[in-house]
């Protein structure tokens, strides 16, 4: 394999993390620390009015469940502080959210025993896929507040999925529902070269990894 020409003096944006070893251990392989919150989007920001917004659980459930915005806000919710990592290599520590655990949401539906995978679908036709086992037991939540304020549209508001242990493309912005399936179905980026599971600690970025 031939070698790439190395540009003298270029290191890129990656910096060294301040705060020593315990900070460094929180940064997954190949990532760099950022203090801002980059806005990445594959399309125009959706603008569903709150009086038309609903969140659904459908697919392999006994009966589909649907909440209006008011009903959704009435669900038991809590604060979450988590580290997040984007496949474009930035990691942000101690992000603060408020929202509903996916456990709580799924408890309102009777899951068919064959339900093994979940497709998160969003306004703007975005989808991402997760095994159900990856979103239970506090591993995922639907957030509607970030940093003590209503979640801004460019960051996925009114509500987005957050799955801290996966690259952030799995944390679907503008989420409108979860569809339970017995078979897996690669989502928007998973179907075009990105890793199906996207575990940042195993550095599963691309489908060959």
């Amino acid at each position: 394999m031939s070698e790439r020409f190395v540009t003298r003096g270029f290191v890129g944006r990656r910096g060294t993390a301040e705060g020593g070893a315990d900070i460094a251990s929180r940064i997954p392989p190949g990532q760099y620390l950022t203090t801002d919150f980059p806005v990445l989007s594959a399309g125009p920001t959706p603008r569903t009015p709150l009086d038309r917004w609903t969140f659904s659980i459908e697919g392999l459930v006994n009966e589909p469940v649907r909440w209006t915005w008011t009903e959704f806000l009435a669900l038991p919710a809590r604060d979450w502080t988590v580290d997040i990592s984007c496949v474009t290599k930035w990691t942000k520590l101690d992000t603060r959210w408020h929202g509903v655990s996916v456990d709580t949401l799924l408890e309102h539906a009777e899951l068919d025993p064959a339900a093994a995978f979940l497709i998160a679908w969003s306004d703007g036709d975005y989808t991402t896929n997760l095994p159900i086992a990856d979103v239970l037991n506090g591993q995922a939540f639907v957030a509607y507040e970030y940093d003590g304020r209503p979640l801004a549209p460019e960051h996925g508001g009114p509500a987005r999925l957050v799955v801290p242990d996966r690259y952030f493309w799995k944390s679907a912005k503008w989420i409108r529902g979860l569809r339970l399936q017995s078979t897996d179905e690669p989502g928007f980026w998973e179907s075009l070269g990105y890793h199906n599971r996207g575990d940042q600690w195993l550095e599963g970025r691309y489908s060959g990894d």
Partner: protein
Amino acid sequence: MDEDRTMDPVAEQVLDGNALAGTLAAAFGSDMTMVPGRCAHCGTVSLVAELRAYVRAPGTVLRCPTCDGVVLRIVETVEATYVDARGAAHFRFVRR
């Protein structure tokens, strides 16, 4: 900035097909910016250069300037470039 306040941060960042010219030329073997494509969603014909490009994402999405439908999706992994062209009903390559 008055003008910027009327545009959300995502809209301000939108580029066009010119920004993908090198990537698409390397993938297809020649310049694609002047190739007209018909949007599979609404039928509008646009040059690839006129498609609206969302480049700040895990990959790039090129959208129809009329209906915002996805025309092209592009991902560059370490080894390869993936192009999903299902959003284009066709591209028209004029023979010279």
